[in-house]
């Protein structure tokens, strides 16, 4: 009898405890069901920034602190998902994004061609330097905010000991077999600009030219022949910068050198508190391809919000904003060459002129991205 009573009491206590625990968890989760979006702050108007830059959050925090009239809210993700969301929102007719900040110009050119971007977003105060100016689009529908290059030759100095490193892009086809790698353009944002840049360079198409279809097709053919030659020479394709660098930094290294984005190599070589890749080096060939980071404003924003968004664009294209970008991710995306006069690159970076950066016209090469990536997937990756 006594045992039964004790058991009943224990069961009741357990149920009570469970009820309390369950209620606590349920109540704490109630806030989830609020339909308030990130952008709906009653006190101040907000603008949603679709951000693929490592320093985005820090820069926005600094900007919001000094601009109390409105608020920039950050949606961090990779360029691919953000670009997909923008297009899906536009297709649905009710875009939520206000600003888009990512590496590369081709996707911005694509958005501009679809009429999704505000023209003339670059403020008159924007004081671009010589490296930045060639990347400013004629209709100023997006603003370059920094420069990196893609196609720099990253290599492991120990693994390549005794190997004669190529000094030209064409020389990569005759490098020792199986040592070279690169990223997959379908997965890695900065890789299509590299392929397009190689094609443009081989075809002699500069960023200021308006080439004919025949000229572009000829350039594409030359580029395809180049990549087929690389494949024949044992080119390895990894998805993104991470796995490509990992293949070079592993022991045993499965890759000795790769043509990837310069900032990714510098990030590992100069990582703090200790370098992730002490034996890593960067060599610039006869040319690399300029990869500007850009910011654009949604054309469907209300005039008031558009004006606020343009204040943010003005901030990141100012010397103060450029410094905030550098300090926001000092060993990652912050390793860029500033595009504004009076701002120096981080001490690890060589002079921009050393990179022999070749700029491409994103309005020419942007629309060809699907076609060229599909070719690359079919013929080089698979």
């Amino acid at each position, binding site marked *: 009898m006594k045992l039964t009573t004790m058991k009943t009491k224990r*069961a009741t206590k357990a149920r009570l*405890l*469970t009820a309390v*625990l369950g209620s606590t*968890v*349920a109540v704490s*989760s109630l806030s*989830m*069901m*609020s*339909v308030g*979006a*990130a*952008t709906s702050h009653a006190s101040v108007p907000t603008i*949603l920034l679709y951000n693929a830059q*490592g*320093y985005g959050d*820090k820069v926005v925090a600094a900007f919001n602190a000094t601009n109390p009239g409105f608020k920039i*809210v950050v949606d*961090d993700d*990779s360029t*691919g998902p953000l*670009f*997909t969301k923008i*297009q*899906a*929102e536009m*297709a*649905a*007719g*009710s875009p*939520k994004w206000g600003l888009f900040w990512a590496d590369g110009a081709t996707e911005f050119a*694509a958005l501009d061609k679809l009429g999704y971007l505000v023209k003339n977003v670059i403020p008159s105060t924007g004081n671009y330097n010589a490296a930045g100016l060639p990347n400013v689009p004629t209709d100023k529908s997006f603003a370059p905010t920094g420069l990196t290059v893609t196609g720099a030759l990253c290599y492991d100095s*120990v693994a390549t000991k005794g190997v004669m490193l190529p000094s030209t892009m064409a020389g990569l086809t005759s490098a020792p077999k199986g040592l070279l790698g690169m990223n*997959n353009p*379908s*997965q890695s944002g900065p890789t299509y600009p590299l392929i397009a840049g190689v094609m443009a360079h081989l075809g002699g198409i500069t960023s200021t030219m308006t080439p004919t279809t025949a000229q572009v097709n000829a350039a594409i053919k030359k580029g395809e022949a180049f990549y087929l030659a690389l494949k024949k020479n044992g080119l390895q*394709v990894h*998805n*993104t*910068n*991470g796995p490509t*660098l*990992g293949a070079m*930094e*592993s*022991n*045993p290294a*499965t890759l000795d050198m790769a043509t990837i984005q310069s900032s*990714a190599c510098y990030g590992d070589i100069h990582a703090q508190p200790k370098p992730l*890749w002490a034996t890593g080096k960067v060599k610039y060939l006869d040319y690399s391809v300029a990869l500007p980071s850009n910011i654009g404003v949604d054309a469907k924003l209300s005039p008031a919000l558009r004006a606020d968004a343009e204040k943010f664009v003005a901030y990141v294209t100012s010397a103060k904003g450029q410094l905030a970008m550098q300090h926001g*991710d000092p*060993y990652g995306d912050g390793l860029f060459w500033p595009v504004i006069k009076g701002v120096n690159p981080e001490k690890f970076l060589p002079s921009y002129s050393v990179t022999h950066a070749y700029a491409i016209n994103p309005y020419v090469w942007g629309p060809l*991205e*699907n076609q060229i*990536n*599909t070719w690359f997937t*079919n013929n080089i*990756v*698979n």
Partner: protein
Amino acid sequence: MTVDTFLSETSSTRQPLARLRRVRWSGLVVWLVLLFLIIIPVVTFVLVAISPRLFRQGTSYFTFSNITAAFQGYTGQGILDSLLVATLVGVFSVTFATIIAWIVQRTNIYGRRLWSGAMWLLLLVPTWMTTLGWIDVISPGELMSALGVHTLFFFHMFFGASGIVFVLSTAALPFSYFVISVGMRGLGSEFEDAARVHGAGRLLTVRTVLPIIAPALLSAFAISFAEAMSDFGVAFTLGSSSHFPIATYTLFNAIYAFPANFPVAAVIAAVLILSTVPPVFLQARVMRGRSYAVLSGRTKAVKRYQFSPVARVGVTLALGLFMFFVLGLPLLGAVTSSFTNTASFITTSGIHWTLQSYKDVFQPLPSFTTLGPPLWTSNQLGIWVATGTLVLAYVLARRMASRTPGVGQRITDVFLLGSIAIPGIVLGVGYIFFYDQRFITSHIVDLYETMPLLIMGLIASSVPSQARLLTGPVGQIQSSLSEAARVHGASKWRAFRSTSLPLLSRALVWAWLLTFTKTISELAIAQILYQPGKEPASVVIETYLGTIFAAIGSAATVITLVEMVGVIAVVLLIFRLVTPKGWRRIGEAGAPS
């Protein structure tokens, strides 16, 4: 007014009311919910395939050109490859699951609970984690290299058709195992005894008994097939690097292209969904006109086959080796990788064991997010999604298990399996296409980029598979149980509470736990629909894994897995404390132990 006239007049006015009363409102409500959760968003997305201009994706209001394009070249090859892969996965997973289920449920193998627990662990590990775990094992410079094993051959094999089929088969294995286990547990040993009494040998006994669990076998095949068709994790990790395109990868490519090719992606999505129709019809054809209800109040406890001591040890070791291979090795790969902070497990100066990656998870680099808040967000999401899914899945399972099969049941069946094959990324983009329509955001409700929409999307992705998993246990409960309760004056709720609920309690708890854990690891929908500033854990982990800081990603993965297992332990403890002992003893329909 004559009596006849009065009667005819009153009956004519009452008829609509009576008809209205006969309408099954519950069914309408269920379909209405499914309409907004799954049907409309997916149909909206698929519509882009033939009418791109409706969504500003082209110039044609009606065209078949995208269908032609999707079946050509790389994408066409992807569709064919996926059908082949899904069929192989279905066959492999059902075969292995049947053998394992028989060994665990019907023999005296050591550690039965351990094997069922291992299956649960396998079920809750998403394919992207498994794949990355394997990469941590067989990549040059990783775990096997440290053990002196030359793995380059396996490494290249893994990044191909064999790797894809292998990972998807291991992912589908627990689905099949649980469905088949339920069938075997409900079977009772009287059927085997009857066969043996009538002179059947071992093989003939198996041939006699297996058809009784045909619904479970076919259901397991169908689920495995659909899961393999829609899997995003493998497409995301292995698909891009392999020389073997699969449909989910080509779909992923079409959606993430610059600019996105939504129309072709929509065609691929439609093909994935429609590909599940043949398995369902095969299942329906085989089961037509037969009853498989074997679980009742009189079901006897199973009699286990007794192995000899040596055979018992041998079988236990063999199963242990198998489970270590499919589950232990990839987990070991992820765990060992998380305890280093170098680009590869073994470096020129040896292996550098450190807890730095675990520290970095919570004190990350400037450009990364700490795991704490995202993990809490994922847990909160898990609670909502698991609870919502359980309610809806149970209702659907009851409809599927109805004793009076009709067109509605068949439609539900096809619909659910078709929905399993919907890749998460399609649901995510479909949700934007529909819920971000201007007339909805301006005049009804603006849900896009809020948590409720993400919860809806996650419920939509969980309900189909959970409903099908619950259909087995629900279908095995003979209706006579609740009918008896009703005859004795119990209300509907009381009849459910006193008959079905005790029998199903463990299955329901496990269904909740499975949905909870799957929600935490879900990536495709979360990445598209999460509320800015409230990233779920899977999105944060994926960000790490895609960079050179993969070791931090591995540490975050391990922490998340441990947390999931912790929640399972707590919930099972609560279940043990709260439920009457009788429930725990009989509430095993569909439970894994």
